[in-house]
């Protein structure tokens, strides 16, 4: 009826200027150096893997959102690249397609698309193929083999539904000395040999396509944190609690448990922490909640690594953290200004 003199609106009143596509696009940019390093390190197979997974994710996203074009928010691209980075470089492409489809279809579209998914889609895809193809996902190839840019790893082009060939003979031909076919974490777990921090930082170890160089991942993460595209508290909380837990274990038994630096730099902890735990849709929104969330992930990672049957625990730790997120959010709501201490 009457015209409002004062414009009345509910909070928030300020806009950070970031839209979802802006943030997502910058995350993709920040991952490009890691992808580049991975391709430089593992050659054609890693390139084919990353392209296949990303293309699968984009195609699935397009297929399942026929009414609205959701490719423009870049989130499917992030899922695809991240998923590719967490898979072993020699992973057969048909399995990678399965992983990409599961990630988007079951991990995201099933729940209603971006922002409604309770779990990080890339990790859902990886968890599925980890459970489905336990051998293929732990078949590693040496980094920096001589003709990595001229030939593919034999397993890359396995026929669909077929078992990937044995690559032990192929690896021997590559002229790589003393290749054990195990990740630093597996070597620690089964042989009690820890890799040096220098190797882990620069990425001259065996691992998934994108989790080798901890230093590079940290730098990319720093870019995101400085531009405020991610909550810096999450990586700090995860890494801090993981380091504290590892340090406590080492105090208890230095001969058996590795030093905290090894725990922080090895395996997928870095990439998981920086790119997956910080997923905005699946992490708590309150500052206190974020600390709790990060702390749980860090502790769980170390516990799964030390006592679980698997060598790597980051994936399940983050999925567990994702599952707890709604609960954490509910119990860490800040008091509304001007209201009493009692719960309403």
């Amino acid at each position, binding site marked *: 009826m009457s015209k409002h003199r004062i414009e009345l609106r509910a909070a928030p009143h300020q806009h950070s200027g970031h839209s979802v596509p802006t943030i997502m696009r910058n995350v993709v940019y920040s991952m490009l150096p890691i992808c580049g390093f991975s391709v430089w390190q593992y050659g054609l197979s890693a390139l084919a893997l990353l392209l296949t997974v990303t293309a699968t994710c984009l195609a699935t996203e397009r297929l399942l959102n026929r009414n609205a074009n959701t490719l423009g928010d870049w989130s499917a691209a992030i899922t695809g690249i991240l998923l590719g980075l967490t898979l072993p470089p020699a992973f057969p492409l048909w*399995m990678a397609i399965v992983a990409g489809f599961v990630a988007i279809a*079951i991990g995201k579209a099933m729940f209603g698309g971006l922002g409604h998914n309770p779990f990080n889609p890339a990790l859902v895809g990886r968890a*599925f193929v980890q*459970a*489905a*193809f*336990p051998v*293929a996902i732990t078949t590693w190839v040496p980094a920096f083999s001589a003709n990595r840019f001229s030939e593919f790893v034999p397993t890359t082009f*396995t026929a669909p*539904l*077929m*078992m*990937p060939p044995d690559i032990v003979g192929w690896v021997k031909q590559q002229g790589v000395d003393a290749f054990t076919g195990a990740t630093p974490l597996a070597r620690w777990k089964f042989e009690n040999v820890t890799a040096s921090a220098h190797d882990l930082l620069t990425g001259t170890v065996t691992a998934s396509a994108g989790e080798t160089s901890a230093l590079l991942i940290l730098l990319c993460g720093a870019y995101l944190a400085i531009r405020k595209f991610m909550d810096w508290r999450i990586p700090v909380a995860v890494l801090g609690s993981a380091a504290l837990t590892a340090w406590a274990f080492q105090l208890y038994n230095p001969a058996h448990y590795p030093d905290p630096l090894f725990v922080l730099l090895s395996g997928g902890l870095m990439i998981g922490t920086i790119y997956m735990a910080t997923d905005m849709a699946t992490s708590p929104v309150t500052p206190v909640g974020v600390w709790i969330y990060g702390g749980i992930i860090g502790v769980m990672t170390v516990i799964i690594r030390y006592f679980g049957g698997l060598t790597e625990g980051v994936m399940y730790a983050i999925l567990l953290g994702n599952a707890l997120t709604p609960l954490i959010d509910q119990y860490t709501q800040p008091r509304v200004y001007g209201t009493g201490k009692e719960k309403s």
Partner: protein
Amino acid sequence: MSLKKEPDEGITFDTFMEGVWRQNPVFVMVLGMCPTLAVTVSAVNAVSMGVATLFVLVSSCLLVSLIRNLVPKEVRIATYIVIIATFVTLVDYIIQAVSLSLYEALGAFIQLIVVNCIILGRAEAHASKNPPLKAVVNALGMGIGFTIGLLALGATREILGAGKLFGFSLFGEHFQPWVVMVLPPGGFFVLGGWLLLFSFMRSRSEKGAAHE
């Protein structure tokens, strides 16, 4: 109030098809999920479970229908349970005698047919209000629908999880088994997939009916 006089309508084709399609216990009513998820690791297990349930369902519905006017309504559930348990015990011993390996594969789920909500549900909702022949036809449809549902799950899981169907290899020896499919999560994935397909088809046909 539930024990009204039986409806007049006789046996129609829908009496049978209700369980097979429109009210399929697995895909539409989502009943009896415990055996559905647990024993559908292979097609053989699934069909055996389905046939065992079918037998118990038909026999107990016949008996319940025959005595429907004799049982006081205060003790009807207990009566149904005794009837169902009798037939489950029969099936239990028969399977044990016919194939011990199958008996071990199905495990406790044979005995658990007694608490399968499809059977009790049919006894309460249909057999206790209808004449014997109609109750049997309806139970037969339900049992076949349940078997089809189990077979659909079991076949999918066996094809993906072992590359076989009814024990026959489909893809040769280089097939890569999807280990997850024979694990419990695989049961949920496959069931979810089938439910999705059915609700998709249903929404399609409803949309089509609305347009006409």
